[in-house]
């Protein structure tokens, strides 16, 4: 933490400065919070990020368009499929390529499976941060099933590199479709079990109800996106409101925070919106599998991609909110500027103003409910 920050904290009062992180069990990766506490109650938590900054935007300018695809996985390795899709859509807009229908459906299926896996990690770590270790193991056990499915599809468990500019790398292996349908059927019954185990647990409700409330205006003003935004009652989902890819063909509803545990926009709402979203993802994946059209999975794309000079912004509804890719091209084979605006980065911005008056245990609940992960924040 820098001297500039310390200057902002007046040292005469006898509050304790605690460094929460960067090696701390519940800061979801390498994040650091300088916390001013007076005993249990915090006056302020100043976030400090950058421990996992790999300058992926600079790499975008060095590596060619197709070569950057594996790097988009590294922006958020828990939900890598969305970053792939976002970048692919952006470059497809630049070179004006129409992706075949089958590839769009395969993208939707792989993304929804990845959303379930990412939400499982989020609600699992949330349960652990509140103290219950077993739900995390159940969540990771289900995520293991998804990892195996996606590994059969594209060969990797975390950094998929499955989408390509103009389509998808591989088609569905045979027998995969029934495996996914069986998994979806089993998973929907597991969500109910999960709810009975932890969601309606009285201690859980008391620990998350009315904690770290973010009002609707604050959420929009601070630019929160995804489940954090919907948890505060804003009914906005990029898949439905600014549709892309194959999503116009699917019917699904968007869960919005309704104050199940007291107030709208508290930590429980953001958590329960993710649980409901997993059920919707199952619906979408099932519809996509049933209506999967035939056809090839890759459009005609020149071997050396040289888009004409211009810029484009593509929006994708990632597991952690709206992931926006801003690509500027100057006619050469390498992008002139690649910018990925992620949900976690903005969610970090709100922590300092929301955290005054919280207790330490609630700061952990706040961080877990915002589902902030270090790679997405630092890029």
């Amino acid at each position: 933490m820098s001297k500039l920050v310390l200057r902002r904290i007046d040292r005469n009062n006898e509050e304790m400065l605690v460094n929460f992180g960067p090696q701390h069990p519940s800061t979801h990766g390498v994040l650091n919070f300088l916390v001013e506490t007076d005993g249990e109650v915090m006056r302020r938590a100043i976030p400090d990020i950058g421990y996992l900054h790999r300058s992926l935007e600079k790499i975008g300018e060095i590596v060619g368009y197709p070569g950057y695809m594996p790097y988009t996985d590294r922006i958020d390795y828990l939900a890598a499929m969305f970053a792939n899709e976002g970048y692919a859509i952006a470059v497809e807009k630049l070179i004006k390529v129409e992706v075949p229908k089958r590839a769009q459906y395969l993208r939707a299926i792989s993304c929804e499976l990845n959303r379930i896996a990412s939400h499982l990690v989020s609600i699992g770590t949330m349960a652990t941060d509140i103290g219950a270790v077993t739900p995390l193991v159940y969540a990771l056990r289900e995520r293991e099933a998804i990892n195996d499915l996606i590994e059969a599809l594209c060969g990797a468990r975390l950094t998929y590199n499955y989408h390509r500019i103009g389509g998808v790398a591989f088609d569905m292996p045979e027998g995969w479709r029934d495996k996914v349908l069986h998994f979806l059927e089993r998973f929907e019954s597991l969500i109910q079990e999960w709810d009975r185990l932890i969601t309606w647990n009285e201690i859980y409700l008391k620990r998350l109800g009315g904690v770290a409330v973010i009002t609707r205006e604050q959420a929009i003003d601070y630019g929160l996106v995804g489940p954090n935004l919907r948890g505060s009652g804003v009914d906005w989902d990029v898949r439905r409101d600014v549709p892309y890819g194959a999503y116009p063909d699917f019917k699904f509803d968007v869960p919005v925070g309704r104050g199940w545990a007291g107030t709208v926009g508290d930590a429980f709402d953001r958590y329960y919106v993710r649980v409901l979203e997993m059920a919707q993802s199952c619906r979408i994946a099932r519809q996509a599998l049933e209506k999967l059209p035939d056809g090839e999975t890759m459009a005609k794309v020149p071997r050396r991609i040289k888009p004409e000079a211009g810029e484009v912004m593509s929006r994708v509804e990632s597991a952690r909110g709206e992931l926006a890719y801003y690509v500027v091209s100057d006619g050469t084979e390498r992008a002139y500027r690649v910018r990925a605006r992620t949900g976690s980065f903005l969610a970090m911005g709100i922590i300092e103003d929301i955290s005054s008056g919280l207790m330490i245990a609630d700061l952990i609940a706040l961080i877990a409910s915002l589902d902030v992960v270090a790679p997405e924040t630092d890029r």
Partner: protein
Amino acid sequence: MPTSPSEYVGNIRDTVKSFWHGMSITLSQVLRRPITVQYPDRTSVPVQDLLPARYRGFLEVDAAICTGCQACERACPISCIQILLEKDAANPKQRVVSQFDIDEAKCMFCGLCVEPCPTGAIQHTREFEATQRSIRNLVFRWADPLHPFPVYKVQKDAPYFPRAPLGSLVREILSRRSWDANGPAYLPPEPLKPPPPPAPKPAAAAKPPAPAGAKPAAAATPAPKPAAAAAPPSADKPADPPPSPGSGEPKP
């Protein structure tokens, strides 16, 4: 805080009900089968066979059907493949590959090199067990500089390319090397030559404009491929090598 008695009793009832359900679920888990796969020794079949066919493990190059087209070298975003073609001393018509190295330590197993390969010589295998004490052992060398292999000529009507069974060559390389062998001793880094006279266009300009992962031109430049900083070899300005501080290279 609970003020009304009904809320007071309600809290107790909810607590008891939710604990009742929660405890019964955890007990029901005790009666189900744990999902642990007892790697490494108590699995029904070696773990490699449990993995799906498209698993992206170590790369394997079948020298018999490699046409030396360097498509994989160009496709790799972090340029961890290096191929060197030469004229065969015996008959100049035949080109030979004298160096085909893949730095598996830096490879991120993204699979971009497998796609453009015309004959499918380079493939991902399902091997993943290759821990080495020294990172220098993780460079797999598929061509012996002393006996470079001839380049494969693709017959027009070849129905398929005769390929060694997937994974066999990698397993053979791994078995040859014990895990704690120390790596090859590199030569000391070369003293920095003064930058070449600016007049003639340096050799870099003549090199094929490799679209992906342009290699640093000057030999002396310690190619900055820091796995840690993950910034791939920044395309040095062809004019002058970056002012690397001092030798900039840790002594081997």
